[in-house]
């Protein structure tokens, strides 16, 4: 048994940072092994999904399909029911198309998928191992596949499920404006956490050698959200405070440690294995707060509900979900992470919302109003791009997408709070998602030292299947990058387009969350920078 293909995900990794960390500054680079990968392999910018966000982007990477097909648009799915909106969490059962884990499994290959979001609950039919991401430690056992593997992992020396898993409580304690101390603690928290994932990956690769070994290190994203000003080369000039320098050193120690994990995994895989790296999106700085529902309220689309008195009112006031008067609201933003506008359409007589016959004209007026959202000093549009959903989310699941997808001028995430002004500068820049992530390949048959043209996130799954020697499903939207592999390799291993994917759709979830549940999830999102 040997690993055929190794895939290392790095959530939020961007060349803006990696290029700097692979250059020797005074002595060795921060990431010397990645520098070797750059020199000996191929790489390209990787264009993310229209909303460059963990849920739609990683699911597109795992399925080779856009969100309009797989149906995962956000962390949270909303259901409008009469004059109430219920919020539910997406999970793996909501993905309507087949994943590469399933495609490889049913063709007899074994997989290991570690820390990928929306792999829980795991499909029982998978041939291999799943330890899901975005699951609290108390639920890892039940969501780990196959049965029995969790106890084996617990036997790994220094294995600590609480360190490994998504820690809701840790994130709940942290606010959007972290104190210097808390920010430092947040970065430090991810050092041992990544080590846990590395240990699990190393163990499964050694003991089981699955054909496709895939592990996601998500600390890159989490660190960059809170510590962007310490890692972005653009913010390392001028007089830097001792705190800044300490935070930069701490952040770089994270990347140095990650480089060591990558080296060990690639070395353990052996010289015959092709290795691929990708991120779900890149990173950049967000410099302003855009309160989109406040702006929509100014324009008459959003109507706020009065906050009730007492404890319930306090909870409401602290909630991160818009508390709206659904009898009057016609268009609103549901969650900060969706960066989209939902138009409320009355689907039956007596329902609230606009009449279906008014939709086109209403949407056109809404677009004009959003285009008019401008910087009062410069006249520049706050919302750089406004996409109609049929243009960016074609597919059977499009009706679950926001009617309009927004791209802010600084790529930031919107705020849904009832607070004015509707746009104001941040106290300091925070990390936010940029549409360009990274895609890299290394190993036998891979072109050396090549920077390719920008690729699409759906190309990753095609490339991994090709590396495994499997046909590319005919309904995949992505392709194998033409210049990533050597001519000799491609001649010996022709790309084969095979049958379409099998149905990956599982039932649609209908549960709803309590206010506490919503608040808990929103705390996590806030920590990740999706909130003010």
């Amino acid at each position: 048994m040997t690993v055929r293909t190794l895939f290392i995900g790095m959530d939020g990794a961007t060349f803006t940072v990696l290029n700097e960390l692979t250059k020797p500054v005074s002595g060795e680079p921060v990431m010397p092994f990645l520098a070797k990968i750059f020199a000996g392999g191929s790489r390209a910018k990787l264009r993310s999904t229209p909303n460059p966000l963990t849920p739609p982007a990683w699911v597109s990477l795992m399925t080779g399909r856009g969100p309009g097909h797989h149906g995962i648009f956000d962390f949270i799915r909303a259901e409008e029911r009469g004059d109430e909106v219920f919020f539910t969490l997406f999970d793996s059962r909501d993905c309507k198309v087949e994943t590469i884990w399933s495609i490889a499994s049913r063709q007899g290959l074994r997989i290991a998928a570690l820390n990928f979001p929306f792999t829980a609950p795991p499909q029982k039919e998978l041939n291999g191992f799943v330890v899901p991401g975005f699951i609290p430690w108390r639920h890892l056992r039940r969501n780990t596949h196959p049965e029995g593997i969790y106890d084996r992992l617990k036997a790994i020396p220094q294995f600590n499920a609480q360190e490994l898993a998504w820690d809701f409580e840790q994130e709940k304690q942290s606010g959007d404006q972290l104190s210097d101390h808390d920010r430092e603690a947040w970065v430090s928290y991810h050092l041992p956490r990544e080590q846990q994932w590395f240990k699990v990956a190393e163990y499964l690769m050694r003991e089981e050698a699955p054909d496709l070994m895939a592990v996601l290190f998500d600390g890159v994203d989490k660190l960059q959200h809170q510590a962007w000003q310490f890692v972005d080369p653009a913010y390392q000039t001028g007089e830097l405070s001792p705190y800044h320098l300490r935070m930069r050193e701490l952040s770089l120690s994270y990347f140095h440690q990650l480089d060591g994990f990558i080296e060990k995994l690639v070395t353990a895989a052996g010289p015959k294995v092709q290795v691929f790296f990708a991120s779900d999106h890149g990173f950049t700085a967000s410099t302003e707060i855009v309160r989109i529902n406040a702006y929509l309220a100014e324009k008459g689309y959003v109507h706020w509900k009065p906050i009730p008195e007492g404890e319930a009112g306090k909870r409401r006031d602290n909630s991160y979900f818009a508390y709206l008067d659904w009898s009057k609201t016609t268009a609103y933003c549901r969650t900060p992470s969706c960066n989209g506008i939902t138009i409320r359409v009355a689907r039956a007589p007596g329902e609230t919302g606009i009449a279906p016959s008014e939709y086109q004209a209403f949407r056109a007026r809404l677009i004009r109003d959003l285009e008019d959202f401008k910087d009062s000093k410069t006249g520049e549009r706050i919302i750089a791009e406004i996409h109609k959903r049929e243009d960016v989310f074609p597919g059977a699941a499009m009706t679950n997408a926001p009617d309009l997808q927004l791209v802010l001028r600084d790529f930031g995430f919107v705020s849904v709070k009832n607070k004015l002004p509707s746009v104001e500068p941040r106290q300091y820049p925070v990390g936010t998602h940029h549409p360009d992530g990274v895609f890299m390949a290394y190993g036998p048959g891979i072109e050396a030292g090549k920077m390719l043209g920008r690729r699409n996130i759906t190309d990753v799954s095609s490339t991994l299947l090709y590396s495994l020697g499997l046909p590319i499903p005919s309904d995949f939207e992505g392709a194998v990058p033409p210049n990533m592999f050597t001519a000799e390799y491609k001649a010996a291993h022709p790309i084969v387009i095979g049958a379409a994917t099998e149905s990956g759709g599982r039932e649609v979830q209908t549960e709803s969350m309590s206010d506490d549940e919503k608040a808990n999830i929103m705390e996590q999102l806030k920590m990740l920078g999706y909130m003010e």
Partner: protein
Amino acid sequence: MATVVAIVKDLTQDWGVDCAEPIGADTLLAANLQFTSVDIIQLCVALEECYDRRFGFQDLLMRDGSYVGDLSLGQLSAFVDAQLIREETTS
């Protein structure tokens, strides 16, 4: 009831929660087993996975427009049973 108890025991086996009484119909998820909201979501998912169907737990978790503060295993089991019976009757 046995299925719900078995799933809850399986779910909580690593939690280190000391429950004074044996887990049964009267056990409260939040008060006795320290379930948080996310734990309740995961329990709902585990039950749906066990029965390979969706149960629409919002009908159990919401009353008169508000979300219930706590839930006993007996209530949970009765809800699941009622859903299964309703499905059998309508199919």
